[in-house]
């Protein structure tokens, strides 16, 4: 096979292989990737492409194989299955293609990963709830899609923390499938059978859980949940009642960081090493419209498409997340931290 990565003269080719696009997070993740590609330095250095695989491992394998044939320099992957792509990824690595996977990462060690620490996600939210409740109270856990690594890790982290606090009683635990509508229905159905709830830990679909509490006219508990815009609207008091909560999100800009890592590795500007980034965290006392909460965007929108603050990993504008268009007059600066 022709060694495609041989000539570095022109633009380097980096493709995004996304497992599926059936939810909002994935859409934003692709949008910010496309937006980044249209901004300097990527617009000059990188030739980007994006592919989706209908949540089917074999489709994604095919796409990655085709990318190998196409002779790309790097592939950025959000995998349909953490284990399912090991084979084809190995083949890409064997051909010297840089593989960077994020979010639902690829197990195969030959690739690099960009991710957050999912166990920590569970712990941090649980700890917030424990602290707000002063270590006493009834807690409900709404879990994600069973059989996935992230769900397992998040649950594990939370359970550790709750178990360490004898005053906390986990009175119920059921799946919300990381989907607001499902979480809302499941929570509605469970509530009549539950005692007073003081804290809710949600792996995904947080706004749905809150809506169920509102509809059932139950006192609003402390909520630790994902970064859905709907949840943040409750936290900011844009939707009533105002909810005391902590929102941690798996940031959609993981794709942009992966893009940068891939670019930097191909260019030889960064060593071949994986990156774990901190979660963007928001709490009810620090909600900024246009930055951590977006009144005009859907509840299902993920409000953490951009990082904020002085140490921000990457700062993106709203159009980037909604339309995939570049942020006006800006060079994108991605801070990969010190390896």
């Amino acid at each position, binding site marked *: 096979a022709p060694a495609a990565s041989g000539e570095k003269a022109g633009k380097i080719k980096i493709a995004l292989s996304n497992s599926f696009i059936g939810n909002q997070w994935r859409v934003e993740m692709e949008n910010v990737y496309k937006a980044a590609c249209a901004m300097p330095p990527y617009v000059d250095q990188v030739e980007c492409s994006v592919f989706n695989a209908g949540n089917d491992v074999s489709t994604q394998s095919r796409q990655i194989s085709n990318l190998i*044939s196409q002779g790309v320099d790097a592939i950025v992957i959000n995998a349909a299955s953490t284990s399912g792509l090991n084979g084809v990824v*190995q083949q890409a690595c064997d051909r010297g293609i840089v593989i960077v996977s994020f979010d639902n990462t690829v197990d195969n060690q030959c690739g690099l990963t960009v991710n957050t620490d999912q166990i920590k996600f569970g712990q941090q939210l649980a700890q917030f709830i424990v602290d707000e409740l002063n270590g006493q109270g009834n807690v409900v856990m709404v879990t994600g899609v069973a059989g996935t690594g992230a769900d397992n890790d998040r649950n594990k982290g939370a359970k550790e923390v709750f178990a360490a606090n004898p005053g906390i009683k986990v009175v119920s635990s059921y799946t919300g499938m990381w989907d607001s509508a499902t979480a809302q229905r499941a929570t509605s159905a469970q509530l009549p059978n539950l005692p007073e709830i003081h804290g809710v830990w949600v792996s995904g679909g947080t706004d749905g859980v809150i809506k169920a509490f509102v509809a059932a006219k139950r006192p609003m508990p402390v909520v630790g949940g994902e970064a859905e815009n709907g949840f943040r609207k409750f936290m900011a008091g844009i939707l009533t009642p105002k909810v005391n909560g902590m929102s941690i999100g798996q940031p959609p800009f993981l794709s942009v960081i992966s893009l940068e890592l891939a670019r930097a590795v191909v260019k030889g500007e960064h060593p071949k090493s994986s990156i774990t980034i901190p979660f963007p965290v928001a709490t009810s006392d620090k909600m900024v419209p246009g930055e951590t909460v977006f009144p005009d965007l859907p509840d299902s929108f993920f409000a953490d498409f951009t990082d904020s603050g002085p140490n921000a990993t990457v700062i993106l504008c709203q159009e980037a997340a909604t339309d995939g268009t570049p942020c006006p007059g800006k060079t994108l600066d991605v801070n990969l931290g010190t390896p």
Partner: protein
Amino acid sequence: MRDALRRVSLGYLVLAATAVAYIVVYTSRLGRFPTSFDYLSILNTTLPLVFVAIGQSLVVLTGGIDLSVGGMVSVCVAVTATTVSSSITWLFVVLAIGTACGALNGLIVAYGRIAPILTTLATLSIFTGLGLRVLPVPGGSIPQEVRLVLTNPATPTGLIWLGLAVAGWLVLRRTRFGMRVYAIGSDEASARAVGVPAAAVKLKVYALSGLCSALAAVFYVSTTTSGDANAGNPFILTSIASVVVGGVAFSGGRGSALGAVAGAVALTLVIDILFFSGIDPLYQSLFQGLFLVVAVLLGTVAALAARRRRQA
């Protein structure tokens, strides 16, 4: 023989058309013909679907449908990924598990007299749960030797297995059992009346579908090198689509597993065609949906034309 050709021609036609389209799109995009790497990776990624589609087509030939293939593949993937690295004999246990799951479907359908779609809808849930129990988080592994024998990424060992699958079908087709499968799909009551032990045949057919799912699982783990308890889900609808595109009649009695194999490969090629033609990812499922309907539509039109010709 001429008859058999006419019956499965849809699958072959669709395959031929998609193959041509694939090569055209590929070459116009990359400026060269597909390489052995492309063919090999198509082969290896399609193998699991090929096996599930063969099992599904057997069931559909008897006039049934098997939605539980998703669950059976998941269970077998889970068991394969967790056990085979400790001892290769576990491979046979996996095949036995798949067969047993299928046989359970067969028992319920043939002796419990519950419609196949309902039986397998229920067992899908059961098997999926079972898979999740065995492998709560994706992981596990498969020994390198197994991988090199089953789906070697460097040499076309997959061709041998594909050939064996095809040969297996051809042999099956030439057994009395094979004839009985068609007889039952054609008219079960009549088949019983002329002495076909319908319940026993159906039991075997569902068991075979389970075995095919187990084989698919083994090949799946072999291509991906580890397991995932949700691995089977996509196979439910794709196996049905393969069978349909392959020209097997849903009413049973007409078609061939080879058609389903062709259908499975064609569906894989469609993915590649969409890939190289640079369609906006958001619209991708639209084209896949259209492909399905158009392929089958062409099939019905062709069948109608054939009937017209025969009548005239």
